[in-house]
């Protein structure tokens, strides 16, 4: 046990370089490291997460705690944290002796990547090998779990394990479609036809918000309908320069402009927040809403009409990614218990439980999901991951691009700037941000 911790600590401190060094000095330090038989008698696992107890994750993880206590004999000391507190104070807490043994943390370069590069997170390569979590995770899910020594995702060691996924899709109000004699679209042409049909009846087809993430995600989705995986990789991980006047982005911005002009998107969307757009759909006013699977639970509870979901018609890639990660702080005292707990949350039982409560588990058996709507949700996600279609989010590449993109698209919706001008401006801002992340190289 002691040697395990020592080896892991060494790995952590020196990052990827030390890993090979460690492997050289003690032959069995990689796979022999992590023992999957954990005896937890008299020990305590401190666990933090910030999911609502009634959410799919909250329910599944509560069951996982029970299962874990039964299986290992250890006690779990769970504290529900606020997202805000973890976000602002993670690096301080993890650098102190108050660090938990296991916690949920946001994936991404600016969050988990940053902590990993600061040496505050345990490299999980040994545990991944011992428990074979990589077999359960699709490639685009693994992207957000691995970070290099600069904290950039997509390569390097495992520093987190995603337990659930998320993606962006269409929510359709079936009642409104039926009432207005419109067909739920399955191709892009049908989508535009449907929007035109609603518009002709005086209904704004799309619930949108340009003040927050929804319109940016639609924009990115439109770009991805013209893009391939290499473009996404270039956009997200800076492997190549991205041309903002190229066919992908100019098409996306122009289409948004067209949709606004045709009345598919209301001009008032500039001032609306995601919450407003969502409520617009839930109260039955808007027939379509393009947003994340995180809305699913809200819509199940709130919608008083028949509705369905579907991936963006005609797209092979959509915005989406793994959900937040389980991370093990470097200062954690019970690392083997933490690994065991992660493994239990990856087990079919817990994963299916999550699926049946409206979550998007990463390794669920679609057959075991009994709820029809949840089945659809998970089937869509599985379709995406099978075709390597998780395209991540438009604002990930740089810390400031979220606000810049929203501001740019607001100009498009307002008509105060031409799409070309916005593309050029966004391209410049994107490149500046990328330069500062990669150190100008």
């Amino acid at each position, binding site marked *: 046990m002691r040697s395990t911790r020592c080896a892991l600590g060494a790995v952590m401190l020196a990052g990827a370089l030390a890993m090979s060094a460690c492997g050289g000095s003690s032959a069995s330090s990689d796979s022999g490291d992590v023992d999957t038989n954990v005896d937890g008698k008299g020990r305590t696992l401190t666990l933090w997460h910030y999911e*609502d107890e009634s959410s799919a994750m909250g329910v599944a993880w509560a069951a996982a705690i029970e299962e874990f206590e039964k299986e290992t004999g250890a006690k779990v000391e769970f*504290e529900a944290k606020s997202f805000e507190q973890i976000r602002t104070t993670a690096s301080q*807490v993890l650098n102190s002796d108050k660090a938990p043994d296991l916690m949920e943390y946001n994936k991404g370069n600016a969050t988990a990547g940053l902590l990993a590069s600061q040496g505050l997170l345990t490299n999980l390569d040994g545990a991944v090998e011992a428990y074979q979590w990589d077999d359960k995770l699709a490639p685009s899910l693994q992207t957000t779990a691995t970070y290099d020594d600069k904290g950039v995702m997509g390569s390097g060691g495992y520093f987190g394990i995603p337990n659930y996924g998320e993606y962006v899709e269409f929510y359709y109000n079936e009642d409104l479609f039926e009432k207005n004699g419109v067909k739920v679209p399955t191709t892009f042409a049908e989508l535009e036809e449907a929007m035109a049909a609603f518009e002709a009846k005086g209904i704004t087809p799309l619930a949108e918000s340009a003040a927050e993430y929804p319109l940016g995600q639609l924009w990115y989705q439109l770009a991805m309908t013209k893009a391939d995986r290499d473009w996404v990789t270039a956009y997200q991980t800076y492997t190549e320069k991205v041309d903002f006047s190229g066919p992908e982005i100019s098409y996306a911005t122009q289409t948004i402009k067209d949709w606004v002009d045709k009345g598919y998107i209301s001009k008032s969307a500039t001032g609306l927040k995601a919450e407003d757009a969502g409520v617009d759909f839930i109260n039955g006013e808007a027939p379509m809403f393009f947003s994340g699977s995180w809305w699913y639970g809200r819509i199940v509870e*709130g919608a008083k009409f028949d509705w369905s979901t579907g991936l963006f018609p005609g797209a092979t890639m959509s915005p989406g990614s793994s959900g937040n990660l389980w991370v093990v702080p470097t200062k954690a005292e019970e690392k083997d218990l933490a690994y065991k707990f992660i493994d239990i949350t990856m087990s079919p039982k817990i994963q299916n439980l999550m699926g049946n409560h409206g979550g998007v588990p990463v390794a669920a058996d679609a057959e075991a999901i009994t709820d029809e709507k949840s089945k659809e949700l998970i089937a869509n996600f599985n379709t995406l991951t099978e075709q390597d279609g998780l395209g991540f989010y438009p604002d990930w590449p740089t810390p400031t691009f979220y606000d810049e993109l929203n501001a740019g698209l607001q100009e498009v919706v307002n008509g105060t700037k031409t799409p070309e001008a916005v593309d050029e401006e966004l391209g410049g801002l994107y490149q500046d941000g990328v330069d500062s992340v990669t150190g100008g190289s």
Partner: protein
Amino acid sequence: MSGRRTVRNTGRRNARRPLDWVLLAIAVLGALVVVAPLLLIVLNSFKSPDDYNQGGPLQLPSHLYFDGLTRFWEASDFPTKLWNSIFISSMVAVLGVLVSLFNAYALGIGRARGRLPLLVVFLLANMLPQEALLYPLYTMSKAVGLYDSQWSVIIIFTVIQSAFGTYLLTSVYSGFPRELLEAAEIDGAGRWRSLWQVVVPVSWQTLSVLLIFFFIWTWNEFLIPTTFLVSNDKQTVPLAVAALQGEKLMDVTTTSASALLGLIPTLVFFLVFQRTLTRGVTAGAVK
């Protein structure tokens, strides 16, 4: 003569009337702007999520709904958070006023040398953004073992609040009637006795205003408590309210309910001490 005056008077009154109305309208508008968010919170606190989804934030609730309040009360262990907030805020208020009093006695009445540069230094502590203080304070509190302890927050805020208090009290005390102090001195009172038996009673109003402000300011603090109070059972009310704000979604009705619960204690505190407050402000204006 008298006729002229009447004309002038009525003329003035007539000229004033429309202006009065305008001023009143502006005051009412101002009050509305201040009260509007409060009203919205109250409105949405008693609304069911369903009601909210159907009618939006501005509609009156179709029926009173208390689940949001109880849900927040239980999930956040509200009584503990409330006690923590009261404990921290009262300690800071009392200690902050004490420290301000001692400092201002030396600087304002004692006219210590170099008091202007000293005051500037005190003000700096107040003007620096808290973000800038965060890391040094974090390292220091970890070094002395006060990380994740309420005392770290109490000490930090006592210093920050008393910096402002020192500045304010010093300017009040530099206009303190000398005759009173001289009379006390003739009666044989030392510095300690003049402080407690002359200065404190005379400036009692100002001190209590400071006390109230320190309490409310500390109550509403977020950044430093969120950094230093790691364990849930040590956290304060604003942190509990923030806990409801999710990453992408928010539960508007429960959040409103929590905001209402978080607001009531300061509101009660303010109403209880409101008379002291107005009296204190006017007392400050007396020479």
